[in-house]
């Protein structure tokens, strides 16, 4: 590597599952090269993290901060803002930071409903329990606090200014490697770009045979045995490959599962779900309103599919029930 000062890197998670960090570990031996080329100042999973160091850092002392996970509570936001301040480059890493991810599905429900399901009304809760966690509690004179659980989930870019986006749930390790290399070599594209993904859609990399499309009946994944060689849409199986950026390695369609869009919308698509809706509905093979209804009735929870990884990024972002 070069003689110049080593890169100063930090990795952190918000409301995440940890899969993004595993994806980084999945670069295997390469991670040792990174360790050689950079000072990993802060990465709780693999090396000792010392928060006080992060606080002590001068603004922009870090060259790169990789943030995975969504913003679900006041603490996530606090960390995001701290790292934004301390780092020259902030990367939203993985579907949750990029688009809100699967935790973002919570935007179709409410805080009260979530607390009720988790703490009050489920088969294994302590009989008669009325307690739900609260951000401030006084126990026998001892004051305890936990972060404020927000009404909804936000993508990272909703709370801080983000420089780059690495999509995927989780990002494909090969792509992670490319991104890290680009950083080390200082070969990053203009800010605000999506990195570690293709500009075309999953269909471009999908090996399945594609023909003209007309759909008379949609099938749920469990209703048929998928043909491994024919485009899933032509089998009436929902697949978001056509609206979704490629770069994942077509891992789901190659497992006979439709794409759920974790790599986010194609570059010139504004809203992944409504765009998918537009394409999908257009190929319905009917001119009769009642038949169309009948065909659509076999697509339950379209919102939960079309925004599986991006509800907080969708144009409407969350439920607007009164």
């Amino acid at each position, binding site marked *: 590597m070069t003689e110049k000062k080593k890169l100063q890197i930090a990795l952190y998670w918000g409301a995440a599952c940890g899969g993004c960090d595993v994806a980084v570990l999945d670069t295997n031996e390469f991670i040792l090269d990174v360790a050689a080329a950079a000072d990993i100042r802060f990465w709780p999973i693999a090396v000792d993290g010392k928060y006080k160091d992060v606080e002590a850092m001068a603004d922009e002392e870090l060259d790169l901060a990789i943030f995975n996970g969504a913003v679900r509570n006041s603490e996530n*936001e606090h960390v995001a803002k701290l790292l934004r301040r301390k780092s020259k480059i902030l990367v939203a890493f993985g579907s949750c930071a990029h688009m809100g991810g699967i935790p973002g599905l919570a935007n179709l429900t409410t805080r009260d409903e979530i607390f009720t399901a988790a703490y009050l009304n489920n088969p294994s809760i302590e009989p008669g329990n009325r307690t739900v966690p609260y951000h401030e509690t006084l126990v026998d004179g001892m004051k305890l606090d936990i972060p404020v659980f*927000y009404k909804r989930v936000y993508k990272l870019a909703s709370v801080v200014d983000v420089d780059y986006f690495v999509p995927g749930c989780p990002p494909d390790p090969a792509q992670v490697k490319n991104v890290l290399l680009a950083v080390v070599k200082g070969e990053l594209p203009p800010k605000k770009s999506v990195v570690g993904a293709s500009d075309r859609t999953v269909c471009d990399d999908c090996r399945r045979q594609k023909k003209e499309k007309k759909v008379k009946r949609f099938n749920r994944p469990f209703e048929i045995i998928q043909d491994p060689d024919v485009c899933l849409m032509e089998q009436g199986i929902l697949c978001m490959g056509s609206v979704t950026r490629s770069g994942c390695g077509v891992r789901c369609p190659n497992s006979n599962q439709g794409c759920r869009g974790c790599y986010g919308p194609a570059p010139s698509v504004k809203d992944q779900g409504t765009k998918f*809706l537009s394409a999908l*509905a*257009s190929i319905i093979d009917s001119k009769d309103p009642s038949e*169309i209804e009948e065909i659509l009735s076999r697509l339950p929870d379209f919102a939960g599919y079309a925004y599986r990884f991006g509800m907080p990024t969708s144009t409407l*972002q*969350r439920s607007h029930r009164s």
Partner: protein
Amino acid sequence: MSYEPKIVGFLCNWCSYTGADLAGTSRIQYPPNIRVIRVMCTARIDPTFVVDALAKGADGVLICGCHPGDCHYSEGNYKAMRRFPLLKRLLKSYGIEDERVRLEWVSASEGQRFADVVTDMTERVRGLGPSRVHATLLTDQRER
């Protein structure tokens, strides 16, 4: 002051926009709440336009096209006919009231019908009160 609904209308050029012009030349009066955007065919209407309008503060969205079978491009309006019910399902899961978004067929000769549709829609949306979408998205920013 009382609330005046903002309604965005997407009209196809050949039937509905012409029908709206006819309403004009025949001086048929209807409420001024509708703001019309002309497209060549309802098939051009990406459902994203509709959610975008709602997010930007529309209280209602009206889509008008040629009657089935009368499309200038022979089958464009069938695409709208297919997308619309799925869009309605999507909006439902977002908790948006059914009557805020509407698809109607209005021919070039139906100036009166266009006026009636706009009048009816305006009254219904007025009845629903202002859409929460725009406001909610703004207050969300204030939560933090």
